[in-house]
């Protein structure tokens, strides 16, 4: 009899979703769908608010990447009002974005994903979690927990508030960085760099290879990729740059984020509250793992695929190791974990670079005066889960009249659904499955860090 297996909630992910696996008469997988159960609709209630308040509201879209929402929306508001941050403020923002990414990546790799690698995909579900990790690898777990905590607190000490930040203001930043703060953050970030190098080595030498091999059939399909790059040399960019959309064969086009509607479109499906972005020029979206149409992916794997290189040396040599092994573009879903750690190294190195530049201590932190005016603007950064685009319009008093946003996880909606179906098809046959096999299907989603 045809039936549906519902896996709910999806666990050890940072959002809310469920997975329905539909089995046919023979017990084989007919389809699998990841459904997002609720609509938050921030776009709606941004309307009528003063445009400079948007960055203090949208942080609540995500408690894990509030800094990226804070910064991208500020850029959009600035474009509306026709102001730009001072150079020092731009450095401080990028610094905060880098510092915020470090605990986020540690959290995902060690607390959410690693229980599958260390304890095994089929381990007892009551133990397959961070507490189990503490039992199995106490030193490592403790170290990761401490590093995550220290980087969170370091950023909080400087910026006042780390979860749902408030320090980024239209035109700049709320306070300058003091010399003693810089020294503290520098020491902290150097420790974080050591830890990130240890992590990427551990991952590529020990934890990931067996799984990459085993999971090849669970998740590899050709897709396009979207990510930000430096307009000058095409290197990895997270804070500012142009967007590059790379096709399955590696050919690519670049566009300014403000041109997003010419390149990206979104489709509504009746069975989930989350929309499906796709490449506009494809004209449609087809979720077929052999020949997907219109599908692109974002997040770290996309970013390391689209970039020409990485501007910091240690992350760049990790990228070279990665490319030697998997080519470019690399299509295996499981490689998201690996790419995430390459980015972790980059974030630490980039934070150190910024902190070592004396200009970051500048006292000119805000472009003033700023007058309300009617305007329209797009702001964009790379969030941990993908390209984050804000599009705002305001009236002559600077009150928001329209808001649109494309968040990281939304871009990956199609990719995640395809991965889930592919993983389910290879894991479940003839109606035979158990909790461990179902967890491997969930692992194909966990890789995206949704």
């Amino acid at each position: 009899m045809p039936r549906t297996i519902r896996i709910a909630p999806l666990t050890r992910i940072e959002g809310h979703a469920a997975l329905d696996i539909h089995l046919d008469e023979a017990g084989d997988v007919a389809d699998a769908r990841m459904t997002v159960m609720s609509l938050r609709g921030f776009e709606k209630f941004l309307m009528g608010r003063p445009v400079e308040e948007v960055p203090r509201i949208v942080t609540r879209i995500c408690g894990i990447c509030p800094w990226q929402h804070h910064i991208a929306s500020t850029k959009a508001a600035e474009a509306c009002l026709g102001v730009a941050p001072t150079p020092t403020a731009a450095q401080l923002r990028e610094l905060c974005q880098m510092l915020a990414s470090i605990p986020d990546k540690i959290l995902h790799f060690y607390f959410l994903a690693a229980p599958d690698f260390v304890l095994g995909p089929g381990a007892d579900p009551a133990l397959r979690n961070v507490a189990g990790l503490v039992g199995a690898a106490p030193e490592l777990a403790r170290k990761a927990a401490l590093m995550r905590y220290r980087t969170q607190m370091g950023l909080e000490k400087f910026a006042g508030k780390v979860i749902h930040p408030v320090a980024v203001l239209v035109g700049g930043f709320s306070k300058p960085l003091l010399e003693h703060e810089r020294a503290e953050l520098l020491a902290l970030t150097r420790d974080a760099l050591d830890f990130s190098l240890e992590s990427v080595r551990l991952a590529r030498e020990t934890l990931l290879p067996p799984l990459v091999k085993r999971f090849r059939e669970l998740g590899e399909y050709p897709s396009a990729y979207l990510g930000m790059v430096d307009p000058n040399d095409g290197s990895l960019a997270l804070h500012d740059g142009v967007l590059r959309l790379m096709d399955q064969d590696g050919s690519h086009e670049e566009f300014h984020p403000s041109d997003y509607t010419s390149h990206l479109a979104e489709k509504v499906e009746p069975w989930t509250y989350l929309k499906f972005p796709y490449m506009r020029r494809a004209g449609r979206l087809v979720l077929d793992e052999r020949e997907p149409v219109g599908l692109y992916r974002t997040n770290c794997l996309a970013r390391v695929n689209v970039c020409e290189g990485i501007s910091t040396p240690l992350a760049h040599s990790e990228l070279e190791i990665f490319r030697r092994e998997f080519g470019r573009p690399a299509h295996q879903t499981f490689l998201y974990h690996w790419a995430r750690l390459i980015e972790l190294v980059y974030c630490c190195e980039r934070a150190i670079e910024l902190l070592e530049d004396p200009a970051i201590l500048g006292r000119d932190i805000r472009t003033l005066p700023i007058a309300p005016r009617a305007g329209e603007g797009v702001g964009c950064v790379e969030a941990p889960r993908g390209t984050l685009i804000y599009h705002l319009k305001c009236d002559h008093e600077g009150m928001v009249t329209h808001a649109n946003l494309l968040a990281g996880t939304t871009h990956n909606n199609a990719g995640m659904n395809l991965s889930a179906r592919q993983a389910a098809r290879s894991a479940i046959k003839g109606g035979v499955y158990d909790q461990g096999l179902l967890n491997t299907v969930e692992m194909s989603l966990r890789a995206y860090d949704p």
Partner: protein
Amino acid sequence: MVKIAGEWLNSCSGCEIAILNLGETLLTLLPELEFVHLPVLTDNKYFGQTGERDALTIPRAVVGIVSGGVRNEEHLEVLRELRAKTDVLVALGTCATAGGIPALANQTSAASMRELVYRGQPSTVPGPDPDPSRHHIPAMLETCDAVSQHVKVDLSVPGCPPHPDWIAEAIVSLLEGRAPAMPERSVCDGCPTRRLGPDSGCAGAGGTLHRLLEQPAFDPDKGLEEMRCLLEQGFMCMGPVTRRGCGGREGAPRCIAARVPCRGCYGPVNAHSLPFVDYVGALTAVGQSYADMPDKPGYLSRFNGSHTIIRKLED
């Protein structure tokens, strides 16, 4: 070992990160706690590990912790199940205690939100609303509600997110079987900035209220005690009408520490306070006029949309 079941409803996961930000305290408490259900960190499933059950089930626990507001039928089902399976229910974070920022949506209809998202965006190819009657997704409720509007709550820990000190206080007081000592009074009560009073002439007195398009005056090399109160400087600071606690046991209010005005993320000072009324007095005291304030619901009801009675605006 005390069994704990945690859930998140219409939430952002910031409250859960705030729990992790207990740091060492969490590691000390962990041996005494057993998380039987906590979707962000552990793998327990509503319908059994292989989806074999029909009814949504959460294991029994002594303490239930819930973050996020109630926005759809599934949130309601999960919340009722959690209430039924736990002895003590803690509402964690301002979304759970007062609706939080997502309840700003209560100023317009749920249908108008769907209209915008699914048919009113330049990047979206218009399509019909997702259809809960034909697919396995829950229907949206008309409003985004606080948890206490649907079930009995034993302990409220507000904050967006709550400071880890008060999360620790909530857990430890439950373990010790005593009443928790939570902060009362307003953010101003714990704010170190200098208040000179209306007689000394407020920067903003008689002038216009400042939006965040302007920059407060302060000397970055000097502490907060040397900075003049932001409200006295003419900035709309919600400190007077917001519950204290964001700085933890020791620290200054967090936004003030970043040199920006409070926006009210701890919710109203107490269950009976009326920010819309109380703020009139706060502005008058610094020589400002309430009538000049733009977007009043956007400032005064930013975090407590489930409790204030605001007229629905035109969609």
